[in-house]
């Protein structure tokens, strides 16, 4: 069946993939926006407690990838979410563009390393760490984190990694499983060749 083969080869992003990616990310962008209030409140009160919720800002990349399972969506998701945050007049401003690109790339590279074929909680957790690493780069230029006391620097990023593993890895995975149970993800996933074969019965 040549037509089917052709369709399988062209597994690029369809408009529906893109729209689902962007809509979910836009919704998460609003969540991010409110999350930054939580973050801002936490940060002066507790000693670096804010880092424990930092992983939330990478959720779009792993959640959307686990749902759609296609190359590129992790990066697009993260940038789209940041776009909304800026649109909402985020007090964190234009630096979010840079953060989002690097975070999205970090997650995307991890999924790519598994050739976009692994959708487990642990791979999502790794992608979360990838995004966290992406977020460190601008921290150096913007926040001079290299000038923190060394113990603090270590503690800060270990906490960020833990929060990424929990939120982007296990929480995102659990959420996607729950959404899969509703049957709606059938709209997003490519059709199994078995289902084409079943037509000949």
């Amino acid at each position, binding site marked *: 069946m040549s037509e089917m083969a052709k369709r399988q080869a062209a597994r690029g992003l*369809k408009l*529906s993939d893109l729209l689902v990616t962007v809509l979910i990310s836009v919704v998460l962008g609003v969540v991010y926006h409110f999350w930054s209030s939580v973050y801002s409140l936490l940060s002066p009160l507790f000693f670096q407690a804010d880092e424990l919720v930092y992983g939330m800002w990478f959720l779009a990349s792993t959640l959307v990838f686990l749902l759609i399972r296609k190359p590129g969506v992790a990066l697009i998701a993260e940038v789209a979410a940041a776009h909304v945050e800026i649109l909402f007049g985020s007090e964190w401003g234009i630096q979010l563009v840079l953060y989002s690109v690097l975070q999205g790339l970090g997650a995307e590279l991890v999924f790519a390393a598994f050739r976009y074929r692994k959708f487990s909680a642990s791979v999502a957790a790794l992608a979360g760490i990838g995004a966290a690493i992406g977020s460190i780069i601008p921290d150096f230029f913007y926040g001079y984190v290299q000038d923190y006391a060394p113990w603090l620097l270590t503690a800060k990023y270990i906490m960020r990694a833990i929060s990424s593993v929990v939120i982007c890895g296990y929480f995102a995975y659990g959420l996607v499983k*729950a959404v899969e*149970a509703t*049957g*709606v993800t059938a709209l997003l996933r490519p*059709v199994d060749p078995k*289902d084409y074969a079943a*037509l000949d019965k």
Partner: protein
Amino acid sequence: MNIAAEVTALRLKFPGEENFVFKDLDFSVGRGEKVLLLGPSGCGKSTLLQVLCGIIPNLVEIPMRSTSQRLPDSWGILFQDPDTQFCMPYVDEELAFALENRGIPREEMMDRMEDVLTKVGLALPDLHMPIDALSQGMKQRLALASVLLGEPEVLLLDEPSALLDPEGREQIWQAILRNAEGRTLIIVEHRLEELLALGLVDRVVLFGPDGIPIGEGAPAYVFAKFQAELERFGIWYPGVWEDFFSSEEGQRLLNASPLEGRRDVPKLVELSRYQGLRQGQPVISVEQADIHPGDFVAITGPNGAGKSSLLLSLIGLLPSEGVYLLQGEQSGHRKGSKRMGKRRKDNRMARSIGFVFQNPEFQFVADRIPDEIAFSLKQDGIAEQDIAERVSHSMRQFSLVGLEERHPYQLSLGQKRRLSVAGAAVRRQPILLLDEPTFGQDAVNTFAILALCEELRRQGTAIVMVTHEERIAHYLATQHWEIRGGRLVSREHTPRGRHLFGRGEVEGARKERSLRPYAQIFS
């Protein structure tokens, strides 16, 4: 005959499903024909529509094949849900999207927009108007306008009036009729009253549950010959209400024995100079009203008149002012849902009132049906044994037996609705509020829901139902409340209510309601 769209030996099957939707179906539509596809819910009519224009498999991948297919030269499709057909926030921008896609020069755009809006009968003071500000019926006509800008030869209509109120239904079909000239129409629709009254259709194809056509021909012929099938498939054919209520089942529903001695039972709800508020502003005012055990209150009125607001304030999700006696005690408060959230434990409202939302999915909280029904009971801390008993009783009562392991989202539209009523009524509250429970449902499911409500009513539950169906108010209700512009403008005890309660004269302004003689359309 000149063919507009055709498919032969179509095989189609949803991934992971056992049964074929279509197995070797041949189907063709001639140029200029106006064809109506009928059949039970889930028989694949909408799927066929999408195959005929190539949406399946070009845009939506579903396993299918055919020996040959002819796609229309140009086509446009109008979907069911008015809210999911737009990509831009403003009317002009949305229409421009369709024109941009076709490469129409900027200078011509405004004229074309105004022209097409006139064609669909949508008069707007300003084209740069937020789409959100339009009613559902207007949105659907805007969606039609946007489709017409593509100048389609074949117009496919996928239940375009299913989610509209009667006024919206009338107007969308009028708009379609005005633009039908010279076009091929392929229509899927369950609600046929308005559509057939306009004489829009010249061929009807009736499908069976397994996707096989069981008959076709001119409307009058099909409706005469396949009366029993139409009834069984839940199609809203003209006269379906009258047929149902004259059937044995319908008679059983109507003929309740009067509630002896119920007149002296204390009132469940008494409202007096009552107002429901949003952001401190009254959105619904009720001068005087009351509800007894065993009442069936039908609330009707135009969209946005305040019907849903009344339900929300009765259950305490909106703050309210004035006298609201719930089982004799003053209820309602100026603060609304906050207090309900905080003091839920001692809140009488949630214990006295059940609530069925318009969209069942938003009410579901569990992954399995029995857990879904048991949820509120578990939150109340009722013993496991009692819960199991009540759940299995509900499963039987609401015809959900055999679906235990299904995820609630995976149920059919009718099953979802029954489950949502089961979940809301399981606490056996004396009052059940329902927000348009028959909306978008087929006739069979609508009658099933009404039968369930009537059953609860006979056990003494007061049913309060917001609805667009005049006939529910006419045949089943004991009280009919009409809401307009944020006010309860009329409140009458229906003949049925007067019979059941032995009530005296009418309260409020009595209005004589005449129902259109649908049954005569095809005499």
